[in-house]
């Protein structure tokens, strides 16, 4: 008898979490960010409910500043699987012309991402939202629960978080309250990559190195994804072999120079690298604010 591998056990646990928490929910949704963690989460959802299609829609909060390749990938994926896709954008923000180049990264993120997410949750009255966050992302996430409880105002109240014993999840909530569930809590970045490789999960090509036009902006290498990049910056663009370790709004996502264009090479680079994953993400350095604060504000 072969022993279950760590990936087998992680997979089985995530599937168990998904099946368990949707059972008490009236209106579940999966927050789909189009990144690699979301790709794994979606793949696990397909496995969890197979041969049924996962019994909930996907929702993408579109800040309008995502890489265009992400949007194309998102639409194609949802269609392939046959899941409903809800795309929500903060229209107030669009009307005010909010964007990272004009408003700075933190205000942009606050309005187009955090506020937009709350709007969407209110609009559709979801009582359960799956998210792809992992405990290994940050020291402060180590004590995060798998099910995180939010008040009707989307606040995270430390006192109302519940102990999680065995694999029993207490998902009882009052009307208006909601749950964020994180089925990937116990996965590490390396687990994610290994699983993508084992299961041949398709991810956005931006993760693979290719020649792309990049500029130097606020200490990061930013890809010129469209002509909203101010003209004077655009003029400085150079073609480089780069890839992305995380994906978000293109002006806020730093590229790393790399020639790794296969999964193996990406994993190899990651294992040999000298810096942690979030380095490339401008927003984390922009605000001294801890993850804790962002969580209380509803970022997760």
């Amino acid at each position, binding site marked *: 008898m072969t022993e*279950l591998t760590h990936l087998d056990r992680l997979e089985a646990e995530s599937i168990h979490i998904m099946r368990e928490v949707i059972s008490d929910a009236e209106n579940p949704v999966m927050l789909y960010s189009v990144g690699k963690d979301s790709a794994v989460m979606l793949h696990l959802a397909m496995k969890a409910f197979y041969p049924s299609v996962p019994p909930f829609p996907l929702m993408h909060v579109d800040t309008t500043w995502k890489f265009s390749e992400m949007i194309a990938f998102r639409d194609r994926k949802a269609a392939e699987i046959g899941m409903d896709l809800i795309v929500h954008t903060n229209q107030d923000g669009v009307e005010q012309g909010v964007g990272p180049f004009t408003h700075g990264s933190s205000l942009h993120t606050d309005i187009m991402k955090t506020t937009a997410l709350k709007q969407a949750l209110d609009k559709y009255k979801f009582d359960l939202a799956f998210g792809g966050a992992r405990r290994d992302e940050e020291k402060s996430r180590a004590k995060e629960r798998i099910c995180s409880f939010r008040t009707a105002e989307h606040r995270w109240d*430390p006192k109302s978080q519940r102990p999680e014993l065995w694999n*029993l999840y207490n998902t009882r909530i009052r009307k208006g309250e909601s749950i964020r569930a994180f089925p990937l809590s116990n996965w590490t970045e390396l687990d994610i990559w290994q699983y993508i490789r084992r299961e041949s999960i398709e991810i956005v090509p931006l993760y693979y190195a290719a020649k792309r036009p990049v500029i130097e902006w606020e200490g990061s290498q930013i890809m010129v994804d469209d002509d909203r990049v101010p003209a004077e910056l655009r003029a400085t663009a150079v073609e480089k072999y780069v890839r992305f370790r995380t994906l978000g709004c293109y002006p806020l996502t730093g590229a790393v120079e790399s020639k790794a264009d296969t999964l193996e090479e990406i994993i190899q680079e990651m294992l040999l690298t000298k810096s942690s994953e979030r380095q490339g993400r401008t927003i984390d350095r922009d605000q001294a604010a801890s993850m804790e604060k962002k969580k209380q504000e509803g970022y997760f």
Partner: protein
Amino acid sequence: MSHQSDLIAEDISAYLEAHENKSLLRFITCGSVDDGKSTLIGRLLYDSKMIFEDQLDALESDSKKHGTQGDKIDFALLVDGLAAEREQGITIDVAYRFFSTDKRKFIVADTPGHEQYTRNMATGASTADLAILMIDARKGILTQTRRHSFIASSLGIRKLVLAINKMDLVEYDEAIYNNIEQDFLEFAQELNAGIEIQAIPVSALAGDNIATNSANTPWYDGPSLIEYLETVPVGDERRAASFRMPVQWVNRPNLDFRGFSGQIASGTIKAGDRIKTLPSAKETTVERVVVHGGDLKEGVAGQSVTLTFADEVDTSRGDLICAANDPAEVADQFQARILWMSDDAMLPGRRYIVKMGSKSVTGLVSSLKYQIDVNTLQDKPGKTLALNEVGVCTLGLDQAIAFDPYDTNRETGGFILIDRMTNNTVGLGLIDFALRRAGNIHWQALDVDRKALSDQKDQKPAVLWFTGLSGSGKSTIANALQKKLYSMGKHTFVLDGDNVRHGLNRDLGFTDEDRVENIRRVSNVAKLMSDAGLITLVSFISPFRSERQMARNMMSDGEFVEIHVDTPLNVAEERDVKGLYKRARAGEIKNFTGIDSPYEAPNQPEITIDTVDATAEEAADQIVKWMQDKGFLS
């Protein structure tokens, strides 16, 4: 994250193949402040190269600034203390950390070890395969070591590592190590049988016997900590046990497919196996073990699968699928060990939601047999359980459920208790055995006495007897009070003088004799209602002391609450809502209380209401407050 395997650089594909087949071990670290727990975990992360260089740089500068080790690296800083959590008022904190070696991935549940964190430790232990008990070599086995061992073994951990730490501070003395190990083995006999104990002399700070065997302890010939963690077998018992799978979700994509999805709790399953679904006890054969990408030849404990059956057997979420030849038991009354996790004490007789496997039912802890002192492991008497206390209880459920004793099967014998009002998880429980099998006697056996009826409503019955002049405000206050009690989830009923006279007492007039009969009947009805567990509000003028005394005598001790709605005659007469006083004064109504018939005010009512200065709403609040103070409303 340089796993310093040269293979990464030379042959990444070979490296990945090898690492895909790693196994997983979950463990918990137990120790009190300063035993070196943080240092040990930091060291494990460091030695397994799970630390990026940017983190290491930060660590080095932090160590110089805040560390306790001079210029050396303070590993404890990697895992943070509790300070931030305390500030945020997080009460139940278990931090989960991850590292891996070439052989295994590890998930560490890191919990503080003080007594006030017993519940956290239990939470971490519930998913752990193994526990590391930190012991300061200078101090030896302490009370806390006993407590930690007790919790770990109660929660079913069968592998304990005794990490005898700070050996550098005792000159790596073999005798000290041996003494501590001996002490512990002696004590461990009080714990559950079948526990494997591995003692290891370590220095978390200096790294002795952590990753590799240390030259400082030539007398020690056991494994280093990491070597032990990498090789200790886990999960065998689960797989060897009988097949169990709680049904999480019924999978019905179309009319041709009906499957039952769940995670295999124990045992193995393959097509052709006979199974029984509980509690319905229907038997059938497994047709397929379905997973995405093809059926499994055999599903094993820990896997999430979907089973299809040869016959249509009615199965739904919450059921337990078992091996037909060795099914779980089904019962609705148990003896269980409970660890209380809430600031509000556990109250026997109160109803909680019991969640076990994928099933939720309501139940109540009908009695606490005794408490267990987590420090001495001795029994002690007790009626309730406060936060972090452990007791042995009788648990009764509204429905029979399938289970195994926790000591036989960790996956199917543990449950959580959920408060019905706050929805919080307030306790964890481990089933010891069924008190009687549900199959045989079932419901008749439960004595549905008045206590059971009031327990079911989660309240204490009372007869709230409003007495006072006509127009004093009795009914208005009773109605306002009923609304408040209703919104608190209480079960109530109002008996109103006027209404009762239209029906039950239609044949009675206002002579003294009839008045007594009136009260006798109403008291009896009120008594029946309180037997049924209700809070009964009686709104009756009831002018005579003796008749109110009669009512009082009829009720159980303390259940009769006399409320004097003390409105002076002139005020009531002035209000004269129903125009009765006018008619009485005009001689149209005879024997009218206050006019031509006396009102005997109570001498010692439980509550006196002044309606001149207070509104009905305020009066109702006053009564609610009184009821809370006297323990009628929990």
